[in-house]
């Protein structure tokens, strides 16, 4: 069970990366870079990766993980990183956008204008 906020941020990034079922090389590079910026050890990172790999419900995990991040600044920082993750492999998948929507919805950061 992840408790540390930076690890939770990493988990969300990985959930987004796995949303389209393919973990691309560019996505891996981005995760590694952010992981070292956040001060998460390589061992911890591989633990989170294997946890996400085993996930059979991305939507539920996105909601549950997002809910554990409480600080507004952490949320704002994460939203930016998640957007970066979506475009890292230069292809935007509907499943990735949906996962981002779910997370933003949990944080009241999603507006669907009509």
């Amino acid at each position: 069970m992840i408790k540390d906020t930076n690890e939770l941020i990493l988990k969300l990034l990985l959930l987004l990366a796995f949303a389209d079922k393919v973990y691309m090389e560019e996505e891996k590079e981005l995760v590694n870079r952010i992981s070292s910026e956040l001060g998460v050890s390589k061992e911890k990172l591989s633990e989170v990766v294997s946890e996400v790999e085993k996930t059979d419900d991305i939507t539920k995990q996105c909601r549950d993980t997002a809910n554990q991040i409480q600080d507004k600044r952490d949320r704002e920082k994460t939203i930016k990183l998640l957007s970066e993750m979506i475009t890292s492999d230069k292809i935007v998948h509907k499943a990735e956008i949906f996962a981002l929507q779910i997370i933003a919805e949990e944080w009241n950061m999603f507006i669907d204008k009509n």
Partner: protein
Amino acid sequence: MELAFYLEKSRSRGYTLQHSLAELADNSITHDAKNVWVYMYWSDDKGKNSFVMVVDDGNGMNEDELMNKALTIPKKEHEDQGGKDLSVFGLGLKTGSFNHCRSITVITKKDKLIKKTLNLSKGITDEMPSCIDCKFVRKHLKNFENQKSGTIILWSDLDRISMLRPIERGPNFYDDCDKSKKHFKLIYHKYLLENKINLYFNGTDDVNKTKTFDPFYKNNQKTIILPGTEISFLKGGGTILKPYIIPNDTGNENLNLSKNDLQGLYFFRKNRVIDFGGWFGIGEKQADRFWSSNDRFNRLRIEIEIPAETSKDWITTYKNKVNIPLYAVNKLRKSLIKTRKDYLEKINLMGDNESDKEPLNEILKKKNKLIKMLKNKIFTDEDLSKIESSIKKLK
């Protein structure tokens, strides 16, 4: 259990999500709600614990109203209560909801707070669905308890929504939400224009509020009102046809419908649009073909109020379709033939004037400029042969 059996049998009535949600909003308006909040929550990949929740601040229900009206099949015909009573058959909550889910939970507050679930397997019970413990629902329940009165309708076990879709269930769920919002802004536009109701989707802020969309552009100075026709029917009741020529430059109306889809008749009942678009199987007398929706008539929209006395003759039981009763067809046809003729005359006249005043686009503007240049110039033979050869080259 007899009730559950009957409801199970009547599940496939062709309700789309937006039509079913409109049934719930109709009930809210009937019960004097000023605000209706629609929430659609996709909880997990398969949608197992997903739910749809509609909250209002209307009058709420007491135990008798809940048990003997809302959650049961009425034993006698629904009698119109006048005023804002948008119910036609008294079945909307059940038939509309069960087209999408297996369980309806009603939480209502009038004198006291009452909670009941109507489930297709178990009938009416006190059991609450598992999604009631979801943080999102708990938050709204807490707010609701502080309301003076109102009702929450909670759909759970969304089998038709979650199981019948093979892929991208989550994104499609939210697409449906978007469609419902667009549907609401059209069918309730009179209520929204007059600020009689606020309809919110997935939030309580101003940005979540449904904007109005008046299909007749009544506040637009370029809209032309054609003469109306009053019709009375032998069976009783009457109506007035109010035709409008909408402006030419309305642009994309953002309803996922084309101008052709939106032309024609708009049937209202108590200021709520029941059905709209097209000519509803009417055509020239003794002709085989009905009028189709086409470019020629794409600026003609006609408002018709369904006669209150005979509305059940016009509206299908699932309240999203109008079938014009046979006794009304001829009278309507006669009026529509005249209206369509008036429309074409007006449009042709406008077409002539408009082309005199301003060219339609940039290419036409350039052409006109060129023609004027040529008209005003005295050409030598050499000039003329140059122009001629240039034109030939262009061909």
